[in-house]
C-alpha cells in the first residue's frame, strides 16, 4: 500500500440500538458521531474530512457543524462505509485531509425523519419491478436455488448459518435476539420468500455507528489502542440481481476481497476473525467461498462443522450479525465496528489473540462490495 497507512482512532455505535422511537435519523448520526469523537478524544473542529451514505453528506455535515475540506457521499448500499474507509485512506495519503469522520445511522424500524432513498435503479425498475419484487426479501435470495442445484448446498446448511450466529449473539448483551435456536426452529419459522424463512432474514432495527480514521503515524496522539487498516478493496457488479454473471459467486465480492487481501499482503491463513455482511443467511456462505476460505460449494459444510462457531478456527459474525445483532438497513458499519472491537480486545465475545480481522460488506442485491482488513499489529 502506498502512502501513510491508515488507522482507526475512534469507533462507536449509537448509545441505544434496537427500537428508538424518539430519535430522528440525523440525531442518530449525531449520537454515533459524538460517541466516536469522545472515544478518540476529539471535537468536531478536529475533523476535516467527512463521509456518509444514505443521508447526503451535506445534510449530516450541516447538522453536526462540520467544516470538511474533503467529502465522500459514495452510496452503493450497506458496504458504502467500507468503501469510505478505502477512499479516506487515499484522500489522507494524497494530503486532501487528515482526520476523517465516517457516519452511518438509520431509523430503519421506527422511520423517524428518514431520508428518502432512491432504492430501485432505473434498470431494476424497468426489468425487475414489473414481476412483483418488493424489496430485498424478494430479490436478494434469487440466486440461491440455482446455487443449491449446482453445488449441493442444502436448506439445513443455510438454516444453520442463522443457528450459529445466534450462538454468538447469545454472548452479546446488545444483541436483539439472544435465545438459542435450532435448524428445526429456522426451517419451521414463517416462510418469507422460499427458500428463505423468517429466521434466515435480517432484523429491521434503528441505530448507527461512526468511525474516525487518520494517518497511522498519528496514533500516539489518541487514547485508544490503534487499529490499523492493512488493506481494502471495492467493487460493483449489477443493480439487477437477475443479471449476476454467476449465481454461485459475487463478482463484487471477488474483486473487493481480492484487492483487500492483496493490498494487505495477507492470505486467508492470516485471518483470525471474519465479518461477512449477512442481510440473509446465504451471504456468509457466498463470502466464505468468494474470499477463498472455502472451495466452491463447500461453505455449507464449513459452517456445519463449526469452523465459524464459538471455539472454531475462523470465528465469523461474532456480534450475532444482521440476523441476530441488529440491522438498520445498511449494516456494513456494524460489521466494521465488531472487527474493531475484536482488534481492540473489547468485544463481548472476544477472540483471544486475534491479530487480523476482515470485514466484507455487500451493497444492493449483490450489486456492490467493500472489504477492509484490520489489524492491531502495526504494519
Amino acid at each position, binding site marked *: 500500500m502506498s502512502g501513510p497507512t491508515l488507522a482507526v482512532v475512534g469507533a462507536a455505535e449509537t448509545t441505544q440500538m434496537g427500537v428508538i422511537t424518539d430519535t430522528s435519523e440525523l440525531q442518530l448520526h449525531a449520537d454515533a458521531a459524538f460517541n466516536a469523537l469522545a472515544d478518540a478524544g476529539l471535537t468536531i473542529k478536529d475533523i476535516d474530512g467527512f463521509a456518509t451514505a444514505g443521508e447526503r453528506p451535506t445534510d449530516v455535515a450541516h447538522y453536526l457543524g462540520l467544516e470538511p475540506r474533503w467529502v465522500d457521499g459514495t452510496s452503493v448500499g450497506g458496504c458504502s462505509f467500507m468503501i469510505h474507509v478505502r477512499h479516506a485512506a487515499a484522500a489522507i495519503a494524497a494530503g486532501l485531509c487528515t482526520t476523517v469522520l465516517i457516519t452511518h445511522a438509520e431509523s430503519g424500524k421506527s422511520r423517524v425523519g428518514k431520508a428518502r432513498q432512491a432504492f430501485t435503479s432505473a434498470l431494476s425498475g424497468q*426489468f*425487475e419491478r*414489473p*414481476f*412483483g*419484487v*418488493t424489496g430485498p*426479501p*424478494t*430479490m436478494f*435470495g*434469487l*440466486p*440461491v*436455488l*440455482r446455487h443449491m*442445484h449446482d453445488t449441493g448446498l442444502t436448506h439445513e446448511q443455510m438454516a444453520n448459518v442463522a443457528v450459529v450466529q445466534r450462538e454468538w449473539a447469545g454472548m452479546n448483551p446488545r444483541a436483539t435476539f439472544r435465545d438459542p435456536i435450532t435448524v428445526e426452529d429456522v426451517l419451521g419459522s*414463517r*416462510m*418469507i*420468500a*422460499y*427458500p*428463505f424463512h423468517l429466521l434466515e432474514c435480517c432484523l429491521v432495527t434503528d441505530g448507527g455507528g461512526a468511525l474516525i480514521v487518520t494517518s497511522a503515524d498519528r496514533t500516539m496522539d489518541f487514547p485508544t489502542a490503534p487499529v490499523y487498516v492493512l488493506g481494502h478493496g471495492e467493487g460493483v457488479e449489477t443493480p*439487477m440481481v*437477475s*443479471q449476476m454473471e454467476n*449465481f454461485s459467486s459475487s463478482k463484487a465480492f471477488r474483486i473487493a476481497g481480492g484487492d483487500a487481501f492483496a493490498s494487505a499482503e495477507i492470505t486467508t491463513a492470516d485471518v483470525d476473525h471474519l465479518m461477512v455482511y449477512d442481510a440473509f443467511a446465504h451471504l456468509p456462505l457466498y463470502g466464505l467461498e468468494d474470499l477463498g476460505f472455502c472451495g466452491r460449494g463447500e461453505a455449507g459444510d464449513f459452517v456445519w462443522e463449526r469452523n465459524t462457531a464459538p471455539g472454531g478456527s475462523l470465528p465469523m459474525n461474532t456480534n450475532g450479525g444482521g440476523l441476530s445483532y441488529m440491522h438498520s438497513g445498511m449494516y456494513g458499519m456494524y460489521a466494521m465496528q465488531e472487527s474493531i472491537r475484536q482488534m481492540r480486545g473489547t468485544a463481548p465475545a472476544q477472540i483471544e489473540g486475534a491479530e487480523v480481522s476482515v470485514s466484507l460488506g455487500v451493497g444492493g442485491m449483490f450489486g456492490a462490495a467493500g472489504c477492509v482488513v484490520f489489524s492491531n499489529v502495526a504494519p
Partner: protein
Amino acid sequence: MAVEEVSGRGTLYSYLINHTGHPGIASPYSIAVVQLDEGVRMMSNIVNCDQTPEALVIDMSVEVVFEVFSDEITLPFFQPVSDGTAS
C-alpha cells in the same frame, strides 16, 4: 447495439416464491429468472403452474406467454412447455 428477435423458449434458471404478498398479484407467486435458449437471462414470473417447489423445477423448459395489461403495457411471462419437449 441492436434489437434481436428470440424464440421465447428457455429454461427455469432460478427463482423465489414470495409469500409476503403484493397488490394485484395472487400470493404466493414465483419471481423467476429464465435462461433463454439464445443465452441471455431475464426476470419473469412462471404462470399456468402451481407456485410450489415441487412444480417449479430448476432447468425445466418454459415458453413465453404475453399478458396484455393495457394499451401500453404487455409483460412477458413464462409457462411450462406443455408438450414436454426439451427446449
